[in-house]
C-alpha cells in the first residue's frame, strides 16, 4: 500500500455513520474511496452541495456540477445544493462534523499552516480558514515530512490558517493528537517504530507507555 492510501484509509476510520464531512483537495479527497463497510456519510463540497459523489460514468459529467477544484462530480440521491453563504454557514455554524485538510506545517500547539509560502506560493486560503475555525472536528491528513524536512514543528514559520488547535494528525508514519499538554503519539503505522516517528518529527512528542499500531492491514 502506498503512503497516501495508508493515510486515507486511517482517516476514513475516524468517520461515523451520518457525519457531514468536507474533504480538501488532493490527498484528503482519497478518503472517500476508503470508507469502512456500513459507514455512510454525506460529503459537502464548499462550492455548494451536500451529497457529492464521483461522476457516475464517463460522459455523464454535468457542466453545472463540480467540486471545489472545478472538476466534474456526481451527486447521490438526496443531495442538496445551495449558495456560498449557506455553504459556509454550514461550515462556520457548527453543522459540519469533520473536515479533512492537507497541511504544510503543524506546531506543538496543534496549529495548522496550509495556505501560503511567502515569496513562493500564494494561492489564497479559499475555504481553509473557515473550515478550520468552524468544523466540529479538524483532521489533518499529510505526509510526515516534505523532502526530508519535518512538517510537524515546534512553531509554525508559515502563516497560520487558524489559531484553533486541530483534533488529529494522520501521516504515513503515525497518528498524533494535539492536546493542551502537547502532541500525543496515539498510533504508529504498521512496521514503523516510535523512534522512527520521533526522528522525523521536529516537535516534542508525548509518548504513552503503549503505542498501538494503526488498525489497518498492509
Amino acid at each position: 500500500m502506498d503512503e497516501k492510501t495508508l493515510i486515507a484509509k486511517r482517516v476514513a476510520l475516524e468517520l461515523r455513520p451520518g457525519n457531514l464531512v468536507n474533504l480538501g483537495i488532493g490527498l484528503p479527497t482519497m478518503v472517500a474511496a476508503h470508507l469502512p463497510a456500513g459507514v455512510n456519510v454525506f460529503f459537502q463540497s464548499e462550492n455548494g452541495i451536500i451529497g457529492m459523489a464521483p461522476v457516475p460514468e464517463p460522459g455523464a459529467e454535468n457542466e453545472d456540477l463540480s467540486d471545489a477544484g472545478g472538476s466534474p462530480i456526481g451527486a447521490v440521491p438526496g443531495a442538496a445544493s445551495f449558495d456560498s453563504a449557506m455553504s459556509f454557514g454550514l461550515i462556520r455554524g457548527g453543522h459540519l462534523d469533520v473536515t479533512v485538510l492537507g497541511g504544510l506545517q503543524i506546531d506543538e500547539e496543534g496549529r495548522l499552516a496550509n495556505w501560503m509560502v511567502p515569496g513562493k506560493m500564494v494561492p489564497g486560503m479559499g475555504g481553509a480558514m473557515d473550515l478550520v475555525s468552524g468544523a466540529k472536528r479538524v483532521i489533518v491528513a499529510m505526509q510526515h515530512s516534505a523532502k526530508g524536512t519535518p512538517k510537524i514543528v515546534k512553531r509554525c514559520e508559515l502563516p497560520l490558517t487558524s489559531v484553533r488547535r486541530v483534533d488529529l494528525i494522520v501521516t504515513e508514519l503515525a497518528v498524533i493528537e494535539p492536546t493542551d499538554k502537547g502532541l500525543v503519539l496515539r498510533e504508529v503505522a504498521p512496521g514503523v517504530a516510535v523512534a522512527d516517528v520521533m526522528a522525523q518529527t521536529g516537535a516534542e512528542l508525548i509518548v504513552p507507555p503503549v503505542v498501538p499500531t494503526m488498525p489497518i492491514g498492509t
Partner: protein
Amino acid sequence: MSKVRKLEDTVAMIPDGAVLMIGGFMGVGTPPHLIEELLRQNKRGLTVIANDTARPAVGIGRLIAAKAVRKVIASHIGTNPETQRQMIAGETEVELVPQGTLAERVRAGGFGLGGVLTPTGVGTVVEDGKQRIELDGTVYLLERALKADFALIAAKRADYLGNLEYALTARNFNPLMAMAAETVIAEAEDIVPVGVIPPDSVVTPNVLVDCLVAKEHRHG
C-alpha cells in the same frame, strides 16, 4: 416588460474602472458571454470581486490574462499562475479573503448591513488592520460589507421579467451578488415566458435584475 437586451449594449454600460462582482466558482456559474463581451469591448482597470480567478483560459481568468483587471478581491488564485505573477510583479492588486468571509461580506452588502462578525481569521494575517470584537467570550473580526457597481450573474433559467433559477454548484456566489450591486446583469441559459418558473423555484426575484442576456436558447 421584457428585460432582455442586446449583449453589446448591456456591456457597453460598464465603464472602464468599474467595480464588478462576477459569479462563479472555478468558472462554473460564471457568465461566459458577458466575459467574452467585456474582452471584445476591451474594458480596462476593472475591480473584480469573485470567489477565484479560475484558470488562465477560463472565465474570470480570461480577464486577468487580458490585463483588464486592476484589482481582485477573491478567496483563491492558486489555480491561475498568471494572477499570481501579476500580483508579485505589482501589476494587479490582490486582496485575499477567506471564502466564507467573502460570501458574508457580499451578503452584508446586499442585505443592508455594514459588515459581519466572524471568528474566521482571528490570530492570522487576515486580522491585520481589522477591528477585533469580543462577545460572550468569543473573539470575532469585524469584516466590512462589499458592494459593486455591476453584478454579472449566470443563471440556469430566467423569465422575461428577470426571475432567476440556478443549477447545482453553478449557484455559488450568484444569488448573493445579485443583491449587492447597483446594476445587475444576468446571463441565462434559457429565457422562458413569465409564469413558467414557479414562485417557489425563483431564487433571485425579478426586481433585482436590470438586464438579461441569453446564453443559448429563448422560448416564446
